[in-house]
């Protein structure tokens, strides 16, 4: 399958890419890892006149620790995040998540920035960014702005990215002692996309759950935080009974989209199972 014709532009710096984006405008698409975009081009679901390739911009690949935050460059591959000691030591559940995406060869190309800019409702990262209270850095010719994950994911394949902006960094707050997090998913056996994924972050203080954040992917048009589950656990003892009770409230106030593989009722059930697993693992990590 061949894509429709386009012109190919290799950017060598963020400024270079922004310049190209400015001159080519909405005729152009950004090429990151390409593992969503190239299949879409081949199916001719997308027919841009220009592709701007970010793969030759080393500054977008870096992973560093800055003031209690882990700063992951938008072009960090899933393999790079999975194997990063910096990510593993400060937000281990993000390293685990990266290692669970697709397969080894897909992880060698796919990037965190590409995933979140694409905002596929089945992608793993968006739920984790919400639970982690991550911040997305968007850069344009006029500078950079920080957008909380809570405000970044707007709708199916739609984000807060404005015209002329690139995702350049994702900031994860390092997990403090007493705080744990986990991402658990039930994957489609062939595509390995999440049928339902749940990310949870919990602080346990004196045996009580605090600052609970729970987010799902795969249930509806975008990843979302589930306030029902969060508030059911907030201030409650960190034990199996309270976790199970909270998990059973998963997606109660959400319109769940089913498909031929997993209908609405099944997805709702899987959501409660993944919520329980993610919360138990988060609490175990917090109290370790």
């Amino acid at each position, binding site marked *: 399958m061949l894509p429709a014709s386009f012109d190919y532009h*290799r950017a060598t710096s963020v400024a270079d890419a922004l310049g190209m984006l400015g001159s080519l405008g909405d005729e152009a698409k950004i090429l990151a890892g390409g593992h969503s975009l190239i299949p879409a081009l081949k199916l001719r679901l997308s027919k841009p006149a220009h592709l701007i*390739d970010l793969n030759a911009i080393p500054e977008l690949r870096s992973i560093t620790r800055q003031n209690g935050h882990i700063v992951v460059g938008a072009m960090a591959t899933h393999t790079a995040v999975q194997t990063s000691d910096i990510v593993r030591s400060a937000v281990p559940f993000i390293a685990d998540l990266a290692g669970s995406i697709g397969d080894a*060869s897909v992880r*060698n190309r796919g990037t965190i920035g590409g995933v979140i800019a694409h905002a596929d409702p089945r992608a793993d990262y968006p739920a984790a960014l919400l639970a982690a209270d991550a911040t997305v850095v968007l850069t344009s010719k006029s500078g950079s702005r920080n957008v909380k994950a809570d405000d970044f994911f707007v709708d199916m394949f739609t984000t807060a990215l404005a015209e002329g902006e690139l995702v350049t960094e994702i900031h994860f707050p390092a997990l403090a002692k007493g705080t744990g997090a986990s991402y658990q998913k039930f994957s489609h056996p062939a595509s390995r996309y999440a049928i339902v994924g749940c990310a949870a972050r919990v602080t346990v203080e004196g045996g009580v759950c605090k600052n609970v954040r729970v987010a799902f992917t795969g249930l509806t048009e975008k990843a979302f935080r589930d306030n029902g589950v969060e508030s059911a656990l907030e201030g409650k003892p960190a034990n199996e009974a309270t976790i199970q009770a909270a998990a059973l409230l998963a997606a109660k106030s959400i319109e769940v989209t089913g498909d031929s593989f997993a209908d609405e009722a099944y997805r709702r059930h899987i959501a409660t199972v993944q919520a329980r697993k993610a919360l138990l693992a988060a609490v175990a990590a917090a109290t370790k």
Partner: protein
Amino acid sequence: MNVPITVTINGTAYTRDVEPRQLLVHFLRETLNLTGTHIGCDTSSCGACTIMLNGQTVKSCTLLAAQADGAEIMTVEGLATDGKLHPIQEGFWQEHGLQCGFCTPGMMMAGVQILKNNPNPTEEEIRHGLEGNFCRCTGYHNIVKSIQYAAKKSAAM
């Protein structure tokens, strides 16, 4: 507008002008006649087109040839040296790691990546590492044994 690229494949540098939409797998197979790399699903699921790009496996159906400019590539044709089989090839031969053979080039490249990351993998680690490669003959047991053979052989070398 065509793009000039120079790619080193199995130790040989090739310079060509490519159409931007040309996929890397078509560049290998049709432009350079390196037909050992196969096209299976063409959607980055099956792994028949797996090659090594700068030391990491990638699915060459989901990369543009233009993106490979400056890269070092190894395909299945690059495994044997001086007429001597690579341990992974010897493993597939000894352990009957292929039936129809269609998935084999990709399986062998995936096997090379598994052993590069972890020279002494468990059976489970091998199976996990093969998640992106489908064998429609379902000959997975012997493929796992072939990679185990290659691991032992490489350790003894």
